[in-house]
């Protein structure tokens, strides 16, 4: 099971454990109204929820005796509160928030073709917005709750794909970057997640079902859903069940868009397959006694690499590469590290998330490969609370601690041109964004955020000149933009809502 699959499995576990439709019990709701009336001493003396529920029940009786309840009330005591101000004099009515008015304090270098997708709850629920890189043209494109669940932008930057459960099931929606043409393209009662745009932007692949990895006859869900992978045209037409289940997962388009790699556990163990984009020509590439997973395409679409567990042919744990027709299987060796421990329990000598000979006594918390594939940046912990940023060459040579100081250095993010790394540095309760050259020189602080500035993947602009990040320096999340040399800091969103998760469009 790969890290992403395992994370998706956890999400599904929580969705089964706590239904979105589950409401707080009425007794708990009624007890809320009694809370403001009781002094702290009384609350302590009376203790927990059950006594407060009794107090609330008494209040309900008084209210019922005194007059009718408002039709707007939900579950009991609470009246409508339109026009009620707080003690601080601020209006809590989020429906009357002013329209977003970006107010750039300095103008970064213009790049009008670049856009940024982000989340905002300025209208009361978390939705997806798109804006120009100067903060202008902020537009709600999801028109309802949405989540990225994969890279949202189509390869040409003209459309966005996201998941939403607005109709009760998790489905894939595609919308133009200007907010027009919103379409449910998956339209699938079995759910949809792990989105992937085809390289030409004409189609979207997604996983569906309960996410199972093994078993020739795994138990379907109540709706008869099994783990399988669909491909659909970006306009919602031409949906095909590409892999047919029942235990298919982990998928990826070949760079030329003609084929598709995925894993299937239909034979009781996981194997790596390729299939043509129309569902024909299915080939088992790995075909070993153990579990095989983690398929990745070569840039020319001719080969696929994958990871095999300890029972593989030849008995070697690690990554293999094979031609896309199944010929020429070659052992590549152990991966240098594995942030969430794919191999725990499989190879006792491989204890921990990183090969001991690479960084003895240390753990890799997070790893990020440079876009050019030559190096990886690692967030490394020593088990005593200190975190540092390391780089290591792809062949595991040249391990270097780039930060080496008592502050907590975390979340390295490569610039698209692989020349620089941005990261978070935390100390004394403050988190700042720093940037350095890939070999560690030229370290510079880009932001000072007393309530924490946060960086994440997707923050670098496509031309590596700017960084978008989230700051709470004014009390709520805003998306800021700064040039990579630290100049031109700009609040792009500047509204009372919570704005987060900026992802640049791929267009330069």
């Amino acid at each position, binding site marked *: 099971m790969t890290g992403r699959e*395992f994370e998706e499995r956890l999400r599904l576990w929580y969705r089964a454990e706590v239904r979105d439709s589950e409401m707080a019990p009425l007794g708990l709701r009624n007890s809320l109204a009694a809370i403001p009336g009781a002094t702290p001493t009384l609350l302590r003396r009376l203790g927990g929820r059950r006594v407060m529920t009794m107090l609330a029940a008494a209040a309900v009786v008084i209210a019922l005796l005194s007059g009718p309840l*408002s039709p707007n009330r939900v579950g009991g005591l609470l009246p409508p509160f339109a026009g009620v101000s707080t003690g601080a004099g601020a209006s809590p009515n989020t429906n009357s928030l002013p329209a977003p008015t970006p107010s750039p304090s300095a103008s970064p270098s213009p790049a009008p073709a670049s856009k940024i997708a982000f989340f905002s709850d300025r209208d009361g629920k978390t939705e997806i917005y798109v804006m120009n890189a100067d903060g202008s043209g902020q537009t709600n494109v999801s028109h309802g709750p949405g989540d990225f669940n994969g890279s949202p932008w189509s390869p040409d930057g003209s459309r966005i794909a996201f998941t939403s459960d607005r109709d009760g099931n998790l489905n894939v929606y595609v919308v133009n970057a200007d907010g027009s043409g919103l379409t449910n393209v998956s339209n699938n009662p079995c759910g949809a997640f792990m989105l992937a745009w085809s390289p030409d932007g004409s189609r979207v692949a997604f996983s569906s079902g309960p996410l199972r990895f093994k078993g020739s006859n795994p138990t379907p869900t109540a709706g008869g859903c099994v783990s399988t992978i669909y491909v659909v045209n970006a306009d919602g037409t031409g949906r095909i069940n590409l892999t047919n289940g029942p235990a298919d997962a982990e998928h990826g388009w070949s760079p030329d868009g003609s084929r598709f790699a995925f894993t299937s556990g239909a034979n009781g163990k996981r194997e790596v397959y390729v299939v043509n984009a129309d569902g024909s020509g299915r080939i088992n590439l790995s075909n070993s006694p153990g579990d095989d997973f983690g398929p990745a395409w070569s840039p020319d679409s001719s080969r696929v690499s994958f990871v095999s567990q300890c029972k593989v042919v030849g008995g070697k744990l690690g990554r293999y590469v094979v031609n896309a027709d199944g010929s020429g299987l070659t052992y590549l060796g152990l991966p240098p590290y594995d942030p969430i421990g794919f191999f725990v329990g499989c190879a006792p000598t491989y204890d921990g998330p990183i090969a001991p000979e690479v960084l003895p006594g240390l753990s890799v918390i997070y790893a990020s490969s440079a876009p050019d594939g030559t190096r990886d940046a690692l967030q490394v912990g020593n088990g005593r609370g200190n975190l540092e940023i390391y780089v290591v060459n792809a062949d595991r040579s040249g391990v270097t601690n780039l930060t080496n100081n008592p502050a907590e250095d975390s979340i390295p993010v490569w610039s698209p041109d692989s020349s620089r790394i941005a990261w978070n540095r935390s100390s004394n309760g403050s988190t700042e964004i720093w940037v350095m050259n890939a070999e560690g020189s030229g370290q510079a602080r880009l932001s000072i955020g007393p309530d924490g500035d946060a960086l994440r993947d997707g923050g670098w602009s496509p031309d590596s000149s700017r960084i978008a990040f989230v700051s709470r320096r004014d009390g709520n999340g805003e998306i800021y933009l700064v040039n990579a040399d630290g100049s031109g800091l700009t609040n792009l969103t500047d509204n009372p809502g919570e704005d987060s998760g900026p992802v640049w469009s791929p267009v330069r």
Partner: protein
Amino acid sequence: MRQSSEVINLADRPSVVAGEASARAAAFTRLADQHLDKAYRLARAILRDSVEAQDATHDAFVQAWRKWDSLRDPARFEPWFDRILVNTCRNRLHANRSQATDISAEVALSTGDHAGRTEDHAVLGAAIAALSSDHQVVVALRFYRDLTIDDIATRLGIPPGTVQSRLHYALKRLHEAIDVAASKGTLR
């Protein structure tokens, strides 16, 4: 129309002018009611027990009322309250754990005669329950609430790197437990 302030004023603080107090109380109860279901579900996700979740949610709202004057912007109620709620849940988890739990034993106990999906669900639930309270909280915020690392850091008042570390070790432990269950044929 009956206003809730008339109910709330029955036991209002004597030192506070009635009108101001009722407005404050009204604002609080309005926001509390708006966020109640979501708060309860988060408590359910963290504590995995409906009674515990009810008590934790109630306790968190009591604390929120005591700290009501520290909320500068009511529009930011949710992250402000989430921080209180998550801390309350964490303390309950911590108090309910008398000693460190053997994650393998928990998983083994969960694998009985159940079949298929129910068993898988129980195994993963047992593995989550065996995590430390700090780890359970970050896992729930990440995979139930789908919060980003920096959003979790804000909720918990800790640096993003610490969130990343806790998540890493929590996932590693869960992975170990699931791997053990899979090797015994109790999980697919």
